[in-house]
């Protein structure tokens, strides 16, 4: 657990008639600011921040507010600068720059970069939109708030990370020359914090960028929802957030005894919640500041305004924590459990009219007696050594705090939750000849398309066996959904593992969330070598999911660079795999198939399009990135796709025919199918066959996986084991479904019967080029050859 000391720098000397004013902000006249008193406050407050470092806080925090007695820091960067050379060790946390109301976001990029140097790499950069009243004060249109915030954020990050001049054009900002001097010290840039107040857009934004999400002023039960929202948004992106990315921000006061603490803290707590935070709805939520859905959420909430909460209510609800060191430690420990954990505590220790002595004593008591008690909390259960800063903390097996579900478990729970949606999607997909777009969105939300994408590109890869589990369960629900997921994951995996860095960045960094790729690797075109790349031409089929893909993958033969000297000899040609944007190809809507009709496996044609080298790789080349999973080699890397899908279909067919058998009779009142011995035998045998197929396939995959995890590419014998097990599994499933289908009689012929779709889909899957019987021939040949080689 990390501990930060946050100072709000309030101006607590309010007139007796303060209640006549609607707010401490915007319209509260500045004649109530006494320059002499204010001057002394600034220096005292900075002393209190410096003191917090001396007594052991990990971070010192300042923030930005304008035209208000609530806080005296219209420029947080000036405060951070005042601290930079007078502190040594603590993080200097600007929480945050209000980039929504800035005319020039580049100024923020420049100042934080400077602060990074002045503090020798200790600055944390928070970004906020700016509070509602500040849109009145700075004449910035609140209907543009979120767009300005997003654009400003993107511009600042790019300015920090670019190492050459660029131009920036976005709806709210235009800069023809962005060339940041200095560049920041911390790489790739200072850590980013986002104080949130419950909007789902902020949670998703934070999770997408893996920033720290920080709560503000809310009861514990509401903060719990926010933290869960952030965690859920992360889960949808396929990762578990590092607990240090979840920050609880809360007013805290500590004194020697509870009685003394309440006596001293009460005026400050009341000042903060009844006066400092007194703002009418019109000031806090100007029109357009909140989206309609966030506004609806706010209106439906059961929260009372602060003015209606007593001091005891505020404490009981978790708005503030007051007491002796033991009380405060215990209360924060309790909140830790109620919030599902967090890894950073940002205490507001200066919130109102406390004296300097009271503030420093509270700070010192907290540091010496509360921090040690809470310090062990909020650490990931199996944090990787040396993994201090992101990249994302994703492992291929369980990761995350003890008690949290594994990635696999969460995915399976998601599949279960969406089972009915997927089943319905199946019949609609048959008509549309591709998966319906809202089901595609559901799969996106589950992160399913990036289960074979390297983590450094934002993917969240599963172990190959876990991947089998997920595909099998998806196929049990619906085969079109499963096929779409499986192919999407596979194609993204190929692009992600094998494209050169520049190409991978184009495909994976350009799109949020991650892209969907469609295509397949049978070479069906040619590529003529030109400077910097190839001119590609050809027509490729079976590009499943092409309707919702943004990139296509295919393979071509290179044209020979010189004529073959001897017509009998093979020309100098290679197979090259390429990736290109879908809109550079022509999609040919020709998917009218006898099975897997709902997978949108259409053709595409490329008419002499230039594909740069960075978007190609030679077929058979080793992967460029991705770790163990990509060390599986070919064809093992793609062998956990069709087999588990067929297993899922077969299991479903088994269950369906079992159900049907109890309802089917030859004549009314006659014995049901389930009573026939012949059927029972067939059913029992079918179950054994499916289980055997499943086990054989998984056994072969597991052996290859063990080898890959040990750092080696599985040798040909293991690859053969995988391919033969795959063919065996798919054939067995096709036979099982076909055999069971017979027992359904006439009923299962109807197009409304799912059994006929299971049969057509599993037969279509068996046609896949990767499941050819030729693998058996190869296995047989190897067996014969190795027998010949054996001694004696």
């Amino acid at each position, binding site marked *: 657990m990390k501990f930060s000391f946050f100072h709000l720098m309030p101006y607590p000397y309010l007139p007796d008639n303060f209640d006549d004013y609607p707010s401490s902000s915007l319209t509260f006249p500045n004649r109530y600011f006494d320059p002499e008193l204010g001057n002394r406050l600034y220096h005292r407050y900075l002393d209190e921040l410096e003191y917090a470092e001396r007594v052991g806080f990990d971070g010192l925090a300042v923030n930005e507010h304008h035209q208000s007695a609530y806080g005296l820091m219209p420029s947080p960067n000036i405060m951070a600068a005042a601290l930079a050379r007078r502190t040594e060790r603590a993080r200097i946390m600007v929480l945050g720059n209000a980039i929504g109301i800035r005319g020039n976001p580049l100024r923020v990029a420049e100042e934080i970069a400077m602060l990074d140097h002045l503090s020798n790499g200790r600055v944390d950069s928070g970004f906020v939109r700016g509070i509602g009243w500040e849109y009145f004060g700075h004449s910035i249109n609140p209907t543009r708030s979120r767009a300005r915030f997003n654009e400003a954020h993107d511009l600042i990050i790019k300015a920090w990370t670019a190492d050459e001049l660029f131009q920036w054009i976005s709806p709210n900002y235009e800069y023809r020359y962005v060339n940041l001097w200095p560049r920041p010290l911390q790489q790739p840039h200072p850590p980013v914090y986002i104080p949130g107040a419950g909007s789902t857009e902020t949670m998703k934004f934070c999770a997408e960028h893996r920033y720290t999400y920080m709560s503000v002023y809310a009861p514990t039960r509401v903060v719990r929802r926010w933290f869960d929202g952030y965690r859920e948004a992360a889960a949808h992106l396929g990762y578990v957030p590092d607990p240090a990315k979840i920050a609880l921000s809360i007013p805290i006061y500590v004194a020697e005894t509870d009685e003394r603490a309440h006596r001293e803290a009460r005026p400050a707590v009341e000042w903060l919640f009844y006066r400092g935070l007194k703002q009418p709805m019109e000031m806090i939520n100007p029109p357009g500041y*909140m989206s309609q859905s966030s506004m609806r959420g706010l209106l439906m909430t059961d929260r009372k305004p602060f003015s209606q909460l007593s001091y005891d209510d505020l404490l009981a609800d978790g708005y503030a924590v007051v007491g002796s060191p033991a009380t405060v430690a215990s209360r924060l420990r309790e909140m830790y459990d109620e919030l599902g954990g967090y890894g950073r505590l940002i205490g507001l220790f200066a919130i109102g009219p406390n004296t300097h002595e009271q503030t420093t004593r509270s700070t010192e008591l907290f540091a010496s007696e509360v921090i040690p008690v809470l310090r062990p909390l909020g650490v990931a259960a199996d944090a990787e050594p040396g993994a201090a800063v992101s990249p994302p903390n994703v492992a291929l097996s369980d990761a995350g705090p003890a008690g949290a579900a594994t990635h696999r478990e969460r995915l399976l729970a998601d599949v279960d939750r969406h089972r009915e949606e997927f089943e319905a999607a199946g019949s609609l997909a048959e008509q549309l000849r591709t998966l319906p777009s809202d089901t595609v969105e559901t799969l996106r939300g589950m992160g399913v398309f990036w289960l074979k994408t390297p983590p450094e590109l934002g993917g969240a890869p599963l172990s190959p066996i876990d991947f089998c589990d997920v595909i099998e369960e998806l196929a049990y629900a619906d085969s079109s959904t499963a096929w779409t997921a499986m192919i999407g994951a596979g194609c993204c995996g190929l692009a992600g593992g094998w494209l050169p860095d520049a190409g991978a960045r184009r495909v994976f960094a350009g799109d949020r969330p991650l892209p969907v790729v469609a295509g397949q690797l049978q070479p069906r075109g040619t590529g003529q070598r030109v400077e910097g790349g190839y001119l590609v031409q050809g027509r490729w089929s079976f590009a499943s999911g092409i309707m919702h893909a943004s990139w296509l993958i295919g393979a071509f033969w290179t044209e020979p660079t010189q004529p073959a000297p001897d017509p009998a000899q093979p020309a100098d040609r290679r197979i090259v795999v390429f990736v290109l944007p879908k809109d550079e190809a022509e999609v040919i809507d020709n998917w009218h198939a006898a099975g897997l009709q709902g997978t949108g496996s259409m053709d595409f044609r490329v008419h002499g399009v230039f594909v740069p080298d960075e978007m190609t790789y030679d077929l058979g080349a080793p992967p460029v990135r991705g770790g163990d999973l990509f060390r599986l080699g070919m064809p093992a890397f793609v062998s956990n796709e069709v087999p588990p899908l067929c297993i899922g279909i077969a299991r479903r067919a088994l269950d369906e025919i079992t159900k049907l058998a109890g309802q089917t009779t030859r004549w009314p009142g006659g014995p049901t199918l389930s009573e026939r011995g012949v059927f029972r035998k067939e059913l029992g045998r079918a179950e054994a066959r499916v289980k055997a197929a499943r086990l054989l396939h998984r056994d072969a995959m597991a052996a290859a996986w063990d080898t890959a995890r040990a750092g080696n590419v599985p040798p040909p014998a293991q690859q053969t084991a995988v391919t033969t097990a795959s063919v065996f599994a798919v054939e067995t499933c096709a036979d099982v479904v076909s055999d069971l289908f017979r027992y359904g009689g006439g009923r299962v012929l109807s197009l409304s019967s799912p059994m006929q779709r299971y049969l057509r889909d599993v037969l279509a899957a068996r046609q896949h080029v990767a499941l050819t019987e030729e693998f058996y021939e190869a296995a047989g040949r190897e067996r014969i050859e190795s027998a010949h080689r054996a001694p004696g």
Partner: protein
Amino acid sequence: MATDAPADEYFELAGGRVHLFRAGLGEPLLFLHAAGGAGTWHEFHERLAGSFDVIAPDHPGFGGSDEFAEVEAIDDLVLHYLDVIDALGLERPHVVGASFGGWIAAELAVAASHRITSLVLLSPAGLRLPDHPAADIFLMPPGELVTALFHNPPPAPDEPAAPDIDTILAAYRDQTALARFCWSPYLCNPKLERRLHRITAPTLVVSPSQDRIIPIAHGRRYAELIPGASFAEIADCGHAMYFERPAEFANVTVSFAATAGASTAAGGSGASFPRASSNGASR
């Protein structure tokens, strides 16, 4: 206050769907509503519909109309309404605008006076008069806004019902749409004042005498700068205008538009564009 509205109508433009009310026979009259007036059909509109074919669309982002996100500012709104006039096939409509709608109407007349027959501006927004600033309606709590709108506020119901969430959200949406166009510069186009001389359509400006939102000085200034414009003041009335005094506002509007139409037919304005016939055959 509100009467039975005619049926909801919609039509499609390239950028989205527009909701409107339409009733009455006669020359077309395009009514451009005020900030709080979207989706409202009132006794005032009924009275106008007694003499004109009244077309009352909701502005982009208001009421039942789509967002039209590309309509970002007042210049886009002018083009939007030219599209509306084209899409509905309106032949040189009379244009009546109230408050925010009055600002749009004035800008429309500056850009394309030849497309309209007459212009009636009801306490129009749109000018920047630093000595007579418009009130900040975005900062007023709802109760204060009602008081500021009316000279004689309507009697409050004995048991005021708490507004339901959908009503609040609809109001927030309308306010958001207004803020898109009016936040800064506040409720005005600083360049409009020096362009008003370009309006050639016969114009009447009507201001309520006790307008606490847009001071009467704005209406007077419009009337000063628009060539040949008339000015009428409605006594004992606040910015709520036709909500507060529907008969007075309707009468002054109808009589002006009727005579403006007639004078144009008699060739009074010197315009050489053909006019729609007076039996509303343009509908």
